[in-house]
């Protein structure tokens, strides 16, 4: 049993390595993300400015050597705010995706393996969540809970789990019919152990892909919610909020809105590259 588990992990790891080796765009995406993570972690050392420091003498400076992305309507250094904003976007990309995929994995495995009435109701719940235009459901959740960063994690997890649950369930359904499951049952392994030790590890590759592909969606959703005013609140340097702040000054100071958007675009693109590469390497059937 130990060996089997080990093998599953080894091949998954090998698949991931292969994805980046064979797929240059995926590798490019990975490099961009690594740079971004480093910038976000070491933000205070990367830039001499404070993201919240107001300098009214320096409002709307054009991008220059001193202010790479220029300054905003309060004279705050925009590059600094974008770098600090990367912390938010990365956290928003990773944490709700992890929560959503974990919930989806548990519910998917349980509903696929045990099936029956429980499985049926889990899937109907997923149907209900997926019936909503995702942004509107997130808006409703944020409206109810209040616009804070923490609630964004909840809203995006609520929106994200259903898709993962569906994919995992269909996999669990086919794994359930495999011989090794029958063998495990025959020697008296308990259902919960079969799910944890056999069904779940076999779903891991797809979960990895689902997780990676959820990240860009989560980042875009956070940016959209913050742009609409139901996400992060000022003066948090959330990327969506930065663009939103800049839209009033589009004609006089276009960089204030445009440059933070470039950051969103590149980050989402990088995660999409990684997601596509992983999917092609691990599980081509998830395509489309």
């Amino acid at each position, binding site marked *: 049993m130990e060996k089997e588990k080990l093998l599953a992990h080894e091949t998954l790891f090998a698949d991931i390595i292969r994805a980046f080796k064979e797929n240059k765009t995926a590798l490019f995406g990975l490099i961009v993300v690594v740079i971004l993570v480093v910038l976000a972690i070491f933000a205070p050392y990367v830039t001499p400015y404070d993201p919240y420091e107001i300098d009214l003498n320096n409002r709307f400076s054009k991008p220059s050597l001193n202010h790479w992305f220029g300054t905003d309507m309060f004279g705050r250094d925009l590059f600094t705010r974008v770098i600090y904003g990367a912390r938010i976007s990365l956290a928003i990309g990773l944490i709700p995706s992890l929560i959503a995929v974990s919930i989806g994995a548990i519910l998917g495995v349980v509903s696929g393996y045990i099936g029956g009435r429980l499985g049926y109701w889990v899937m109907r719940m997923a*149907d209900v969540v997926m019936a909503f235009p*995702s942004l*509107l459901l997130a808006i409703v959740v944020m409206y109810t809970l209040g616009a804070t960063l923490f609630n964004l994690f909840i809203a995006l997890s609520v929106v994200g789990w259903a898709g993962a649950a569906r994919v995992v369930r269909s996999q669990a359904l086919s794994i359930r019919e495999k011989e090794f499951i029958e063998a495990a049952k025959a020697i008296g392994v308990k259902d919960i152990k079969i799910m944890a030790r056999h069904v779940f590890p076999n779903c891991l590759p797809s979960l990895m892909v689902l997780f990676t592909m959820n990240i860009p969606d989560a980042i875009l959703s956070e940016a959209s919610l913050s742009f*609409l005013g139901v996400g992060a609140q000022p003066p948090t340097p959330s990327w969506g909020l930065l*663009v939103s702040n800049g839209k009033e000054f*589009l004609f006089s100071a276009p960089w204030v809105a*445009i440059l933070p958007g470039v950051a969103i*675009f590149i980050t*989402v693109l990088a995660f999409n590259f990684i997601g596509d590469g992983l999917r092609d390497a691990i599980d081509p059937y998830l395509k489309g």
Partner: protein
Amino acid sequence: MNRLLISIPILLCVTFLVFILLNVVPGDPVALMMKEKVSADVVARVRAQMHLDDPWIIRYFRFLWGLLHGDLGTSYKLQRSVTDLILQAFPRTMVLAFSAALVSWIVGIPAGILSAIRQYSVTDYFFMGFSLAGVSMPVFWSALLFQYVFALKLGWLPVAGFYGWRYVIMPAIVLGWSSAGLIARLTRSSLLDVMRNDYIRTARSKGARELAVITGHALKNALLPVVTIMAIQVASLLSGAVITESVFGIPGVGRVAVDAIKSRDMPLLQGSVLFATILVILGNLVADILYSLLDPRIRLEK
């Protein structure tokens, strides 16, 4: 028929979820409605008038009963029927969503076909890069970019508003681009998939030219999943419309929802979210029916 029956409980659950989420919201809607300080007495009277003190289950059934009659309640802020407000805004959203869908098909399908025919060529990389860019760009940002370039700098198109067809061009392209990316990617992978089939090899071996093989044999099957995605597009277009409408100042359903959030107008938000969700459920239903009509190999279970 079976699908239609499944849609009904889903619809019920959707109404329940929206109702629960929006009616447990802390803060007294009456206090929010009144601009000035009013006595507790007045608040209590208005609450009673609006039946806000009834148990939530009764309020839910009253809400459901209203919904069945097309009555979504009264907007707190505008003091007008929510149904009227939404129906008034809906045609504009329709125009936007339909033109965006049109853009996405006209661009996405040919791009996907060309990419599949010339797999791993420069053309393929160009179109796939273009598609991925469309999927990766935040709609609000590309909207601002378009406004900056085509309205403010070049002056070709109006910045915002909704007074004629010229006002629809930019929002439709912005909203359509992200969908075009999805459609191009789907068309490409679906066509590549079909091209591996035996009947394609047969067509080739009997001497049919490549163009004839693709248009005469492959495309019909390859476009099946694309047709269904068109109906499912409703969801992404409506999500996108929320943002596009607010950037381009189009007074559609998405704009109604955003205004409702800003003024914490619960019935209006509830109504517009429900309305959009019902459209999505209808879209999925149409997709299922279309699929089984177009592809006799697929019959819906039972």
